[in-house]
Each structure stands twice: as structure tokens, then as C-alpha cells.
């Protein structure tokens, strides 16, 4: 009974992460991971953090935001600049890196407050386009600043990221976010998604909770940015354009909005997918696009419900049971 508890509810997510981590850890200790595969581990973790935090906005609050990459870049630059300064002051990695991560997250959160207060008056597609615009503004401002290295990019960040640190960060994030989502505050946030006016009438401070969600999501985007910045030797603002935001959104929607487990799995799949198609060379992005379209249509269209049922093991098992029970019932008669 106790073991079963580990695989239901929130524990399911923790267990999945721990098992996945242990598998990867054992494989890499045994030297079974190719260099290419192990170079994917940190990007996978970063995408998990980005997707889960964006899911907070899109899935739980129900607001489409397209500026997640903007917050990621602000956090990345904040964290990397601090890291460079701390490294010069000879602060050891174990102190330097967590401070850089928290600092990067806080910078992103601060930006999200500044942006959120005017922007959160808007709704729906208007909110989407304005967050997209903010992401683009952040990008072009960073390119035109001197201390960020400009268009050439920021060099000299210590390469501290590895998948073990990323795993620890993911576990902390999951612990915090799952507690937030399952708390009174989380219920307020989902209430706003389901019916804003009704939530407001129940005394929920809609503006406060919208801003809270926005800021928390931005904080973790910033942390992901810091991890990203410490994974490569050079950080360029060009990587954080709206295409990056859209990529994260694709992960969230494919994983299922409001499903944290879904975001994690989809982040892993979407990061590996284009790499897995590397064998087909030039066709890989084409295949990726076609797979994306087909998955979306089959998943969301009402014409393909039969196919979804066909592929769903739970549905098949239930159907089998029902048929058997019906037969038994007849025999009993």
C-alpha cells in the first residue's frame, strides 16, 4: 500500500524524476552515454524548468504568455554577470552558483513585476502579443548594451552547470510549485482560470494572484536562464527570441496544460526528438514539424477521438472488463 502511494498524485512526479535521474546517473557512471547524449542532459533539465514554470501561467492561470524567453535571458545575464564577478573574487563554486541562480531568478522576477503591473490589465491574445513584444524589447536592449557583451555575446562565464545540479534545482522547484498549486493560493489561481468573474465575486484578489503567478513563473525562467548561461562558454541574446518562447509553449501544450507531469515528459521528448532525427539529416526539422502538426490534430480534434481511445490502454482495459462483465451477467441470468 505504501509503495503504491509513491506512484500516485504528487509522489508520482517525484518518483519519476528520481528514477529518471538514477537511470541517467548509472548509465553515465558506466560510461554508456555518448558525449552527444550527455550534452543533451542539461538542455533537457532547462527545458523541464522552463516548461513547468510556463505551465503555471498557461495551464494554471490560463493566460497565454509568449515572453518566457525574455525572462530567461534577463535571468541568464544577471546570474552570469554575478558569477563572473564572484569568480574573480575567488568565491568557491558551491557558494557562487546558488547565489548566482537566486540572483538571476530575482532579477527576472523584478522585471516581471515591472512588466506585469501594466500588462496584466490585458487579456487573451492582447496579453500574448504584449508579452511577446516585451521579450523582443529585452532582446534588442541587451544586444545594444555594453556590459552584456552586445551582439557578440557574453564570454567568460564559469561552466558550472551539470545535470546533477540541474536535477537538484528541478526537485526544489517541483517541491515549491506543487505546494503552491495544491495550496489555497493554487486553488485561487485555478479558480481565476475557470471563471475570472466568479472568482472575483468570491473575494479572490484577481490582480494579486495574476501577478503572483506571473512573478513565480518568471523567477524560475530566470533560474533556468542562469543554468543555461553556465552551460555554454558564450551567451548571446539572439538565442532568446520569440522562437524560444514558442518552443517552450509547444512543450507545455503538447504535455497538456495544467499537467506538471505532462510538461516534464514532453520537455524530455521534445528536446530529444530533433536529435533523434539527426540520422535523416536535413529532413529532421521537416519531420519534427510534421510530427508536431499530426500530434496536435490527433490530440485536439474531435474527429480523432476513436484513435485516441484505440491508443489509450486504460480505455482498452476498461472496455475489455465491461465486455467480460456483460458476458458474466448474461451467464448469471
Amino acid at each position, binding site marked *: 500500500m505504501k509503495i503504491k502511494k509513491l506512484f500516485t498524485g504528487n509522489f508520482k512526479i517525484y518518483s519519476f524524476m528520481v528514477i529518471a535521474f538514477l537511470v541517467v546517473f548509472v548509465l553515465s557512471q558506466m560510461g554508456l552515454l555518448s558525449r552527444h547524449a550527455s550534452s543533451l542532459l542539461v538542455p533537457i533539465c532547462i527545458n523541464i524548468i522552463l516548461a513547468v514554470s510556463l505551465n503555471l501561467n498557461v495551464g494554471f492561470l490560463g493566460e497565454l504568455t509568449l515572453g518566457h524567453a525574455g525572462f530567461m535571458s534577463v535571468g541568464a545575464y544577471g546570474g552570469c554577470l554575478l558569477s563572473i564577478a564572484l569568480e574573480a573574487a575567488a568565491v568557491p563554486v558551491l557558494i557562487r552558483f546558488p547565489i548566482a541562480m537566486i540572483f538571476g531568478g530575482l532579477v527576472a522576477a523584478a522585471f516581471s513585476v515591472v512588466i506585469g503591473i*501594466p500588462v496584466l490589465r490585458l487579456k487573451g*491574445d492582447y496579453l500574448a502579443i504584449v508579452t511577446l*513584444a*516585451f521579450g523582443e524589447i529585452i532582446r534588442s536592449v541587451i544586444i545594444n548594451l555594453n556590459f552584456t557583451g552586445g551582439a557578440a555575446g557574453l564570454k567568460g562565464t564559469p561552466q558550472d552547470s551539470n545535470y546533477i545540479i540541474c536535477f537538484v534545482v528541478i526537485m526544489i522547484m517541483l517541491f515549491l510549485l506543487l505546494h503552491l498549486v495544491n495550496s489555497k493560493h493554487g486553488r485561487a489561481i485555478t479558480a481565476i482560470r475557470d471563471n475570472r468573474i466568479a472568482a472575483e465575486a468570491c473575494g479572490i484578489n484577481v490582480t494579486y494572484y495574476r501577478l503572483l503567478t506571473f512573478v513565480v513563473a518568471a523567477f524560475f525562467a530566470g533560474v533556468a536562464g542562469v543554468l543555461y548561461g553556465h552551460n555554454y562558454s558564450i551567451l548571446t541574446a539572439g538565442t532568446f527570441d520569440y522562437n524560444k518562447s514558442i518552443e517552450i509553449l*509547444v512543450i507545455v501544450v503538447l504535455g497538456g496544460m495544467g499537467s506538471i507531469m505532462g510538461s516534464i515528459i514532453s520537455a524530455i521528448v521534445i528536446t530529444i526528438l530533433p536529435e533523434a532525427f539527426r540520422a535523416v539529416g536535413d529532413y529532421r526539422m521537416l519531420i519534427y*514539424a510534421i510530427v508536431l502538426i499530426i500530434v496536435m490534430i490527433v490530440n485536439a480534434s474531435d474527429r480523432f477521438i476513436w484513435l485516441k481511445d484505440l491508443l489509450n490502454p486504460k480505455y482498452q482495459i476498461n472496455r475489455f472488463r465491461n465486455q467480460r462483465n456483460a458476458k458474466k451477467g448474461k451467464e448469471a441470468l
Partner: protein
Amino acid sequence: MMNFFTSLINNLISGLSVGSIYALIALGYTMVYGIAKMLNFAHGDIIMVGAFAVIVSVSSLGLPSIIAILIAVAVCVVLGVVIEAIAYRPLRNASPLAVLITAIGVSYLLQNLALLIFGSTQYSFPRLFQMEAIHFGQITISGQSIITLLVTTIIMIALHFFINQTKIGKAMRAVSEDKGAAELMGISVNRTISVTFAIGSGLAAIAGLFYGLTYGFIGPYTGSMPGIKAFVAAVFGGIGSIPGAMLGGILLGVIESFSKAYISTELSDAIVFGILILVLTIRPFGLLGKKTNEKV
């Protein structure tokens, strides 16, 4: 003082010319949004397809300009209708976000198809028209700006009459107002949406032509930035509103041209987006968008 005045006029004209291209693209966005209630992220890439269609038919097949343009429009119209029928029609009742992601998938598909066919090099766009620039004292209007402005003005007037005077236009307005009620009145919603996509994609082909003429080079990813800017323009004017898209596009072009000339070339995009945010915080429904009150 006189110099400043002439540069002001020159920049205004180039802004109007670029802005009218944005307006053509924004019209496609806004019509599709108004009628199918979806953000067609692949719209920007239709521009690229149109521009490549012109390049292929002029440079490789050696066809005359007019026929090349007609081919480009035909290719884009067919493409738009086919995309709608295959990718978007099955999702008519799905959540808007699912449709959005599918549209992004279509955008990736078009970009990567173009990448496979044409490679990542930039193709120079053929000079289709030779028209002398007009000089008014120190003010110079390039022939290209004149053609762009002339054609887009004619298209916009024609579109205005089409929407307001014809039967199909009336059907389009009805579908955008209330899909269910329109269907009960005997309007074929699917056909109306197809027509909308056809018109939007045709306009995108023309926009692709003028974009190529203005900037000279076309590559597989050319469509995405003007696409995003036109999307911004459509929201700026109030998404779903046709005059709004025209106004938004032209304003966007003028603002961009002025900020490039007088403030900073690198920051011009940031300024354009900044003004958009400013406008939306003051008028949350865009310049000409209708304010809809929420009903409880």
C-alpha cells in the same frame, strides 16, 4: 530647417511604403482572426512562399512580371486554402491554443520545406518594375514606393468594397459576428473560412512581392519578422478590425521609419514594440477595436 523638413517627408514616405506592406500582411491576420478566431502564425511564411514563387517564375522560368505575380498569388491562394483544409479544419472546435500550436507547426513546415528546396542562401529578388523616381525639389519619391503605395491603396479600397458590398463579404461579416447563427441562415461556414484564407493568402503574396522589391533579398526565414510585425500591427489597430489593420500597419511602418532615422537603427524594433505596449495599456482593445463588455 529645410533639410530637416525634407528628411522628415522622405522618411514619412518610406514609412508609408513599408507600412502599407505591413498593412497587407496584417489584413490577412486580422481577417482570419475575425472569422476563424485563430492566430495564424503561418501567415508570415506565406509571404516567403509568394516571394519565392515570383523568383522562380521570373529567374528560372523566364516569365514576364505580370504572369509571375499572378502565379505567385495563385500559389499562395491554393496553399492557404489547402493549409486551412488539412491542418485547421479538423481543429474547428478545439481550444484556441491547440490551433495556435498547429499553426506554429505549419510555419516550421513551410520554413523547412523552403530550406530544403532553396537552401539557406539569400536569393536576390528580380527587379520587376523600372520606374523613375519623382523629384519635388529636394523630396525624392522612389518609383518603388509609388507602386507600393498605389497598389496597396487600390487593394484596400477593393477589399473594403468586397467586405461591405458583396454577398460573400456579407457572409464573412456574419460568420465573424456569430458562427452558429450564420450557419442557421444558410451560410456555409467552411466555405466562408476558405474564402477568407484565400483572400488573406493572396494579399500575403502581394505583400511578399513588395517586400522582395523593397529589401532585395529573400531567404527561408524572411517571412517570420514581417509576420510578427504585421501581427503586432493587427493588434495595434484592434485585432479583427479591417480598418484597424490598415491603420495599424501604416502607423507601424511610419514609427519604424522615424525611429530608424532619428533615434537608433538597432533599437527601432524595441521602440515599435514599446509604443505598441503603451497604446495597449491606454486602449486595451487596440486603436479601432471594439470594446466588449464581459457578461456574467
